[in-house]
């Protein structure tokens, strides 16, 4: 390290060079670089799917890069697993914290490395507790090490994770969306701790969508987009407008098969919809044949909003009208009865029975229609399923193929086929092309357009701006549960959408 400094190179704590990583059908990172200086807060920003998390997972050894090298403290390292990263002094604090709730703070800190007395492996509790108190003091916190973690709130658990990183002598701490679940005062406290850490010479990689926070805490900002490195600037020299253009400034190609459809009457009318603190006072209308895009960053409340519409979550306020009639959608059954369909964001959780056949998945919602006195008419069912497989071009060797063995794109087509069988009026598509390859994506886009032409009303949620812009007649933008923007197709513009999605701007537009 000393030599490197003498040689005139900048003494970067971490240098990642030309990191490339692909997953089947997706190029997640293309030759991405990142240099983190000692004692700095380095912000990493980009849209959902820009490659931030993948890059960090490569860094801590959860993924192996296809190409590229990592230098830590000036030395080339090969990090094969998170344990190795920790030994080197790199620690990641994940978005989802998972401490062991039944154990005390000290016990959690020492999991897997409990100090023992020489004989019999008896745990040395007093040493554990003393060290724990000491470490918390380092970041200016006074705690009782014997408190059960179950009694801690999210912010306190986060502090615990940070202390865990410190206790492992980590010099580089990665924080993935650390403020997604904490509030104003706790955020201030977190920033205080981050400043204490950097003052001690530790470095922090700070991943966040919240632009205001980046300007408060970071020294340097690196922007990624579509798995590519866009640029690194000192925060003080980067204005917000430039930052947003770096995040979204891509060429919009006209690859989308969107066709103009004459819009019919209003099918769905939502007014003042609220759902606990996730969805706040949202109102909009949706017309027959219309594709209404819903844009927003992670945690904007998009999924929560459509799950509320579908009866999976209880609305705390607001009215929903379908074909002009006020309805109560308290359960998926009620939603289905009102001809709603939900192709959910997580197809493995809500979409499919992975253990059952393509046929049984496709006909599940509508099974009653193929039954006579409760007995399934197997011949009819098979011919219906065959028609769906043909219509949606589901690549399967037989109707009996187990859903688990299909590719992601084909699984998604099974979910869509299932819902289209119910002949819905309103189709909610939540991230319908996430995690599937380019060819399958294009097929799903064609399906969506065909459905709109049939007169279906479509709510399309997507984190990919090009998809939203290419497919929608109109776009709503959500930020922290609120509607912050509405755009007609001809006014769509990436930067304005991003300004609304990050809460920098409010914009409403009468259609």
């Amino acid at each position, binding site marked *: 390290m000393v030599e490197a400094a003498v040689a005139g190179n900048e003494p970067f704590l971490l240098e990642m060079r030309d990191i490339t990583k692909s997953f089947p059908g997706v190029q997640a990172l293309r030759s991405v670089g990142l240099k983190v200086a000692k004692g700095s807060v380095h912000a990493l920003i980009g849209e959902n799917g820009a490659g931030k998390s993948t890059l960090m997972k490569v860094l801590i050894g959860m993924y192996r890069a296809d190409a590229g090298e990592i230098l830590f403290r000036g030395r080339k390292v090969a990090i094969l697993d998170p344990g190795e990263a920790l030994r080197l002094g790199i620690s990641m604090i994940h978005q989802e914290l998972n401490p062991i709730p039944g154990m005390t703070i000290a016990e959690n800190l020492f999991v897997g490395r409990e100090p023992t007395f020489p004989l019999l492996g008896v745990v040395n509790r007093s040493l554990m507790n003393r060290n724990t108190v000491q470490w918390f003091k380092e970041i200016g916190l006074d705690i009782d090490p014997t408190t059960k973690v179950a009694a801690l709130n999210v912010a306190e658990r986060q502090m615990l994770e940070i202390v865990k990183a410190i206790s492992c002598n980590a010099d580089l701490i990665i924080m993935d969306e650390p403020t997604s679940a904490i509030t104003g005062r706790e955020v201030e406290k977190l920033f205080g701790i981050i400043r204490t850490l950097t003052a001690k010479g530790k470095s922090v990689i700070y991943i966040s969508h919240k632009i205001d926070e980046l300007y408060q805490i970071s020294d340097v900002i690196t922007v990624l987009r579509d798995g590519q490195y866009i640029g690194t600037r000192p925060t003080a020299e980067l204005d917000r407008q430039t930052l947003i253009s770096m995040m979204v400034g891509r060429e919009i190609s006209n690859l989308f098969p969107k066709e103009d459809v004459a819009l019919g009457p209003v099918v769905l009318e939502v007014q003042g919809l609220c759902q606990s603190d996730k969805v706040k006072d949202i109102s909009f209308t949706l017309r027959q044949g219309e594709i209404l895009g819903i844009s927003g960053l992670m945690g904007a409340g998009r999924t929560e909003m459509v799950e509320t519409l579908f009866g999976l979550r209880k609305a705390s306020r607001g009215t929903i009208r379908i074909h002009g009639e006020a309805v109560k959608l308290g359960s*998926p059954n009620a939603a289905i009865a009102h001809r709603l369909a*939900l192709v959910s964001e997580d197809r493995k*959780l809500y979409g*499919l*029975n992975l253990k059952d056949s393509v046929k*049984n998945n496709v006909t599940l919602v509508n099974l009653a229609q193929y039954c006579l006195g409760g007995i*399934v008419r197997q011949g009819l069912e098979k011919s219906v399923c065959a028609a769906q497989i043909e219509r949606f071009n589901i690549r399967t060797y037989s109707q009996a193929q187990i859903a688990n063995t299909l590719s992601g794109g084909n699984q998604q087509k099974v979910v869509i086929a299932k819902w289209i069988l119910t002949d819905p009026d309103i189709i909610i598509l939540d991230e319908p092309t996430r995690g599937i390859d380019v060819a399958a994506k294009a097929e799903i886009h064609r399906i969506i357009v065909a459905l709109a032409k049939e007169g279906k009303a479509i709510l399309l949620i997507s984190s990919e701006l090009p998809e939203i812009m290419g497919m929608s007649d109109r776009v709503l933008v959500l930020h922290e549960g609120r509607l912050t923007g509405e755009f007609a197709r001809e006014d769509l513009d990436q930067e304005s959408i991003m300004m609304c999605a990050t809460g920098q701007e409010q914009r409403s537009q009468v259609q």
Partner: protein
Amino acid sequence: MNLTQTTSATRHPELPRVPVRRVLAKYGIYIAFAVLFAILSFSSPSFLSVQNILNVLRQTSLNGIIAVGMTFVIITGGIDLSVGAIVAVAAVLATSYAHPGAYPIVVPVLMGLVFGALAGFINGFTIAKGNIAPFIVTLGMMTIVRGTALVYTGGRPIIGLTDQYKWIGGGYWLGIPAPVYFFLLAVLIGHFLLAYTKFGRHVYAIGGNEQAARVSGVKVHRIIIAVYTLAGLFAGFAGVVLSSRVMTGSPVAGLGYELDAIAAVVIGGTSLSGGVGSIPGTIVGALIIGFMSNGLDLLNVSSYYQQIVKGMIIIVAVLVDQKNKQVK
């Protein structure tokens, strides 16, 4: 034996590997049963006699009837530990109405069925609405129901039954023991419900992915309640057959039957994590257990050793099943 065949297939590259394995994965349990049957036929001369086979079938009937109900429960991802105790309560309730000159035969039989179904309904209702783990609910119900049987009889067995009642478990028709027909009836009902009806589809859907089933409009609670009610009904029926067969309504009947039923279901290829399984598999599972203990009896293996063998079969069956699934 499944394992050895699979490995020999891998040693011969000219054999089409995947189909062989797929066949094994799908029909392995039936092949295992056939091989077991063949081995026992060769090793004991008295095994293959009509008398012996009918005997085993009659013995298997009870476990088979209970296991049909258990199959539904396990496919939903649940478990029912109370069926053995339900056998006892159904036995004592039914027999207490089966004394000569008291009631027509349908009364005791209905008593057993209705109370079995009622206990099952309470299981299902508590599991679905209370959102409590099936293991806990049915463990509690096991003790409650067993206690009820003991309270009802004061701990004494009920004897003195009508000949009609005794026929249910002890009679013959066309040379075949009556319980075998009841087993067959249970199997037909169970298989029909599971494989051919909307209800059966929903059972698989819940076991495969309860959340997805709910989103797809499946009335999850209703199906869960129905499944446990069905398991209780079958167990109640088994209680009637058992008490008739031994001509006694005993409050301590059916001890450990839940475990035999679970064993039959699991050996038959139903996954304890839910979503996968079938009634034909369960029948074969029950038959394997029945023929295995009969064969070991004939070979003069002590019943102590038989327990060890039975335990090993359960573990090996699941192990082979796991391996086969990984092949996919």
